[in-house]
């Protein structure tokens, strides 16, 4: 039991921190522009595919640097020539634009790289078991993912709270007009934050590609989950996104690891059910089965009872 808990905890934290890398960019972009970027997970996918292509020629490590930069540049272009143009049609059009972009990027990825899963692997230097407890290996690559995610989190926190750039970004988020009056180029700040947010998503893709697989559906798999995190954590709250990422990461790994079902619960109270009743699926429901719907259940409940999210201060 303890071994199960230990590994679920570790895996949950790895997943959670990976999700945070996506969610941090998304929540910053949201608090800036008031637009939830549907294409954010597509940037994550692009990161993985770029890194895969780069790794074919020069190996994993240069891809770790180059791919996020490319994705960041692409994101900045999307903001400059896409979102800023669509802004004139209003928020709903912006939301639909990012939705269409996500659809388009998936099609383009299928067009360029094909529909099959790409053989994008972790570098050989990280292909060993870091430690073995209770007879189970913990791969070094997961530790590497953990390290990168924590490093990014600390760096982001430092930049946003301790540096001049961070101050200007925070000012531009809360009072864009006033910041512009003071002589700062607010559109440039927006473009920069959008680019950096996309680059972070790209980086997440680079390091998640080998672990979770590089295939055209990878954006859809993670896309809605990242939304859940941003909304649950509170729109525009970085700390909230962090907590929510960990919650969702742990929730998913634990729900899969702990194999309990409703019938177990009923057995505790010694209630018996008919095997062929219309509700039979309800009685045999098990935790791993409901694991995929838990985040959405959380999302809907949060939106109903606490629309500001866990740590958010404002509603949208």
């Amino acid at each position, binding site marked *: 039991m303890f071994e199960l808990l230990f590994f679920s905890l570790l895996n949950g934290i790895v997943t959670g921190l990976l999700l945070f890398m996506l969610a941090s960019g998304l929540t910053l972009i949201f608090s800036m522009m008031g637009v939830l970027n549907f294409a954010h997970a597509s940037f994550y996918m692009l990161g993985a595919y770029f890194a895969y292509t780069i790794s074919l020629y020069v190996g994993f490590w240069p891809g770790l640097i180059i791919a996020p930069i490319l994705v960041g540049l692409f994101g900045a272009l999307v903001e400059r020539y896409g979102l800023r143009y669509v802004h004139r049609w209003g928020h709903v059009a912006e939301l639909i634009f990012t939705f269409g972009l996500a659809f388009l990027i998936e099609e383009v990825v299928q067009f360029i790289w094909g529909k099959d899963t790409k053989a994008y692997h972790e570098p050989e230097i990280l292909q060993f078991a870091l430690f073995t407890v209770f007879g189970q290996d913990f791969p070094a690559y997961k530790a590497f993912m953990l390290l990168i995610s924590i490093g990014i989190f600390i760096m982001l926190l430092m930049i946003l709270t301790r540096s001049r750039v961070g101050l200007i970004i925070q000012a531009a988020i809360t009072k864009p007009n006033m910041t512009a009056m003071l002589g700062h180029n607010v559109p440039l700040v927006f473009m920069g934050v959008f680019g950096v947010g996309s680059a972070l998503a790209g980086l997440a893709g680079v390091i998640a590609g080998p672990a979770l697989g590089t295939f055209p559906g990878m954006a859809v798999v993670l896309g809605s989950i990242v939304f859940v995190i941003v909304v649950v954590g509170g729109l525009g709250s970085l700390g909230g996104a962090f907590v929510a990422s960990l919650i969702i990461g742990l929730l998913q790994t634990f729900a899969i690891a702990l194999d309990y079902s409703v019938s177990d619960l009923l057995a505790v109270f010694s209630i018996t059910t008919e095997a062929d009743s219309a509700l039979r699926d309800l009685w045999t429901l098990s935790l791993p*089965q409901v694991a995929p719907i838990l985040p959405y259940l959380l999302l809907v409940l949060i*939106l109903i009872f606490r629309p500001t999210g866990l740590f958010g201060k404002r509603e949208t």
Partner: protein
Amino acid sequence: MSEIANTQTGEISAPFAKRFGPWIFLAVALIVLPLIFSSNIAVYTMNLMGIFIIFALSYNMLLGQGGMLSFGHAVYFGLGGFMSVHFMNYIEYEVVVLPMFMLPIFGGIIGLVFAIIVGSFSTRRAGTVFAMISLGIGELIAASSLIFVAFFGGEEGVSGDRTMGPVIMDVDFAQDIEVYYLIAAWAFVTIALMYLFSRTPMGRMANAVRDNDERAEFIGYSQRKVRFISFCASGFFAGIAGGLFAINFEIVTEENLNALTSGVVLLMTYIGGVGFFIGPIVGAVVFTLLQTVLSNHTEIWQLYVGVMFVLTVMYVPQGLTGIMAMHIPAYRMKRLSGLVVPYIKAGIPTILMLSGIVSFLEMVHHVRAAALGETMMSLIGIEFDTHTVMPWVISGVLAVVGGYLTKSQMPQLREAWEQANAPLDSGEGASS
């Protein structure tokens, strides 16, 4: 207010032909169409069209008329379909005695019931919160559909047999054409109902809440109630569309209520134009045509649809119907003929450019996807070898020359457009 009053009095005094003309035209078109396009594939396409028209119109009750952006509208469509297919099986096993053509009503009812449940908490706000709740509910139901096998049938879905119902007037729905007339009848009724709904004070208030919810509140309407009623009506009609889908295909699966279907309905509604009642109809027709015709000719049709969608959102947010509506002022002033020549002049190079780009994409796709050693491909009947230089040069030249010529024609086109839309000397029609 004055505008509403004007249009109302205008309608009442409008002559019979103007008021009922479009409806008579629609009815005649629905009856005559299968006589003109009688092949199997055409009837299949039109069946799908009818279903999507109802679905897209119900979606536009939210997005266009109510200002609610939903990412989970397929839930009501899919649930309606599942309910109908279950009733189809009940009829077959004679649990209930019902004529088959009544099925969509049950689809509509479950759509309505679910819309009441979801709408009771999701319509509190429009905007991002509503969009997120709809997304969450959509994912929730789609994921649950794989868990609750008794109702949703798991991955293979639920299937039925539409021919097993009681035979009324020799119609047992064994032929697709019989299903076509059923769908056409339902489409006519639901289009009329949805149009009438948009004309009721309730429909007008939905527009008011969309435009400015605060002001609507100050007038004394509860924005939440207005949204809730629109939402329920929309769920009802989506359920009817789902019921027709069940009759047409005799199978409903998880795919019919997942995020992809929700995305498709958003796509066709938006391409058609959300600002007009007929917009979703145009969108559904165009999308179905693209889906059935284009997918016969190319494997990458979804790429084209995606490009088209993004371009629509960026440059013509009014949609295809909006482009048509832009020509109404010029038409009223009888200056449309002045636009024909510039359109042809700009259109030919544009077609050249597009054919260049499309052939380039098709060749790239062919080189990547074709079996090893198979280098010949055909485009619009022309056979050529993709591993030679010539086709690439031709497509490149087409794209570049076409693009250049299109660009050089643009100033002339703009000038002609402004001339056609310049206010009349008397100032009449300038404001419209």
